[in-house]
């Protein structure tokens, strides 16, 4: 069965969607990703959708759901590399994916994840160090 690979990179998980998503693939990804987050205790998830050309309302909702689930499992999620046509389609469908963080490319997305992790660490340990 077709699966979307989830790569581990230090404290982060990397998901690159290289094929067109269909509904079952999205459901599998949701399962796999939540399992991997709890297994690895990852602090951040980066989803690269720069190869994704077609979205519908279901895939849009899946992206939102995956982000919310990761947050429940204590991992930040960034969606990177959304194409203009995909962004326009989602907006026209009335899905603004509020709560999902976005970045232009993988670089910017990793920056965002590192910054938010640093901020979390500061908030946790910062007061104790002083």
């Amino acid at each position: 069965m077709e699966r979307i690979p989830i790569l581990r990179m230090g404290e982060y998980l990397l998901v690159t969607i290289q094929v067109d998503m269909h509904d079952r693939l999205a459901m599998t990804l949701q399962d796999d990703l939540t399992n991997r987050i709890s297994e690895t205790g990852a602090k951040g998830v980066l989803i690269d959708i720069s190869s994704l050309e077609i979205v519908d309302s279901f895939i849009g909702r899946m992206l939102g759901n995956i982000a919310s689930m990761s947050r429940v499992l204590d991992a930040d999620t960034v969606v990177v590399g959304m194409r203009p046509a995909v962004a326009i389609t989602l907006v026209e469908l009335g899905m603004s994916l509020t709560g999902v963080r976005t970045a232009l490319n993988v670089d910017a997305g990793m920056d965002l994840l590192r910054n938010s992790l640093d901020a979390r660490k500061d908030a946790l340990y910062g007061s104790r160090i002083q």
Partner: protein
Amino acid sequence: MAISTLNQNATLASIIEQHREAILAEWLREMSGATRRSDLLKESELQAQCSQFLDSLARASGTGTNAQAAAYEPLREILADISHSRAQKGFSPRETAMFVFSIKRPLFSAIRDAYGKDPSVMAEQMWSMTELLDSLGLFTTDAYLKSREEVIRRQQEDMLELSTPVVKLWEGILALPLIGTLDSARTQVVMESLLEAIVQTNSRVAIIDITGVPTVDTVVAQHLLKTVTAARLMGADCIISGVRPQIAQTIVHLGINLLDVTTKATLSDAFGLAMQRAGFSFVRADKRETKRD
């Protein structure tokens, strides 16, 4: 005593052919008044158009006087060409239609000469000719309007292209100065060109400047919010600048929620914020030197 219609038509064509030169000369004289527009059209060109029209009319009128008939197809094409070129040269619709209507007097006088002895036939002929020329005249107006509309549509497209430039202000900062009313079609173009530019220039901040947008109603605000959301989905921040006091009042009175969007009064404020977000800071040159001392 009544002659058959076929005969009538044949005689009409033969009248035109017989009196061709006289009709032509009379017609040109008829048009020499206000509708001539010698500033826009050369005498020789007009003459060529007239004789072409007359020849085609003579040929077509041999078959009947219904302007929609297939026999009138060449004549309609000639008229469409004439109307098209006149619309582009700047003739008014009236002047264009008068090209056809001014042939009535010379043509009718030729008919009168031919049927002077038989008033009922003359009346019949004149009536069918009037009907024919009227519908041809209306056809020129139609063709004129069509070519005008073509011009307007092309200009609209040009304006759509021209009015949505995306400019790069700094590394990673784009600006989109909007001028004119925002409708759905334009918003689509604006959104697409902005998003394409964001990808191409790898920009994190985009400033949408609405100084040139005359009014912001709920529809325009909706379009702006869509653009901002789409840019956010791609990972770019949007700042809306150039909000005039009246527009700020309208937005609040209409109950439009712009709370999720950063708005600034001027483009320079927005640029300052954008530089800050992109991680740049400004220092005035003379201050830096005093620091060094």
